[in-house]
């Protein structure tokens, strides 16, 4: 839902990195998004197309690596990925689960010219 503001931050970040490297064009952006953040790739892509116009990042290809939500059962220690519908531990059915992965939201690398 908040992809617009995330994309604005993304653009500021990569323009800054490219400027520091003295690059005049960004051709690729590699982004890591965890499922917990709720950020949707296609929305970022659409916003990016709009926001990057007339900047060195215009036309850059965005690649996403999506990290699934991961949880750990506090009762039996089992690590699993809850589905959209089911959060119980598949091993012991416990609801005592802590979120251990899927909060990622970062730029891994960019390709510049």
């Amino acid at each position, binding site marked *: *839902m*908040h992809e617009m*503001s*995330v994309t604005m*931050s*993304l653009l*500021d*970040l*990569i323009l800054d*990195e*490219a400027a520091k*490297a003295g*690059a005049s064009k960004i051709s690729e952006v590699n*982004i890591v998004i965890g499922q*917990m*953040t*709720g*950020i949707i790739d296609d929305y970022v892509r659409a916003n990016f197309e709009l926001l990057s116009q007339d900047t060195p990042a215009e036309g850059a290809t965005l690649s996403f690596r999506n990290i699934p*939500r991961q949880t750990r059962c*506090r009762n039996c220690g089992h690590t699993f990925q809850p589905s959209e519908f089911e*959060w119980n531990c598949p091993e012991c059915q*416990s*609801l*005592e*689960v*802590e*979120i251990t992965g899927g*909060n990622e*939201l*970062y*730029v*891994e*690398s*960019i*390709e*510049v*010219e």
Partner: protein
Amino acid sequence: MEIKVLKDILNANNQIAEQNRQLLTSKQIMAINLMSSPGSGKTTLIMQTVEQLKGRARVAVIEGDVSSSIDAEKLGQAGITAVQINTGGGCHLEAGMVNSALANLSLDDIDILFIENVGNLICPGGFDLGEYLKVVILSTPEGDDKPHKYPLLFSQANALVISKTDLLPHVGFDTEAFARVFQGLNQKATLFKVSGITGNGIEDWGKWLLDNLQKLRTSNKTKQ
């Protein structure tokens, strides 16, 4: 040429949040990021909290809304210091907005600062504002099935306030089922049940705030 970046996309927000946190802590202010759906009773809870803590803690409010100043006016009429932020369509508050609002508050006269986020159970969870604690409100008519639908927000809360408990006989909210699911996901949060109509539960909530204010100030002293 490839450049390794490995930076959080919200890096800029996080840095301002950290500035806010340092400023607030240095002023001994406990900031609470208050998050919930629209209409769950954030403003009502704040008004009752001010009444409850009268003479014991000075409360101010940063009021975040998409538009209008209805809530800030309501608080102002009740004699509560409030600064309105309008996000102009934005679905959450960001650290920079809070930073600007802080410039309009007299920080030496505040003990507890409520930052009332935009009513939304999704987006506010992604943005650190520099708060000391995060509090989520869920009103009973919204239903007891929310934690697994909005796991990010519910897993972050330091306290969870179930509001509108006077409606329990009418809305089929299963408090025990809620507590089981919520506490399964979040072991650190304290659970409160309050009603703005009867005033039930406000005393316990007020006590929790004062205890945490004390903790913040004790840890400040230790650091000095």
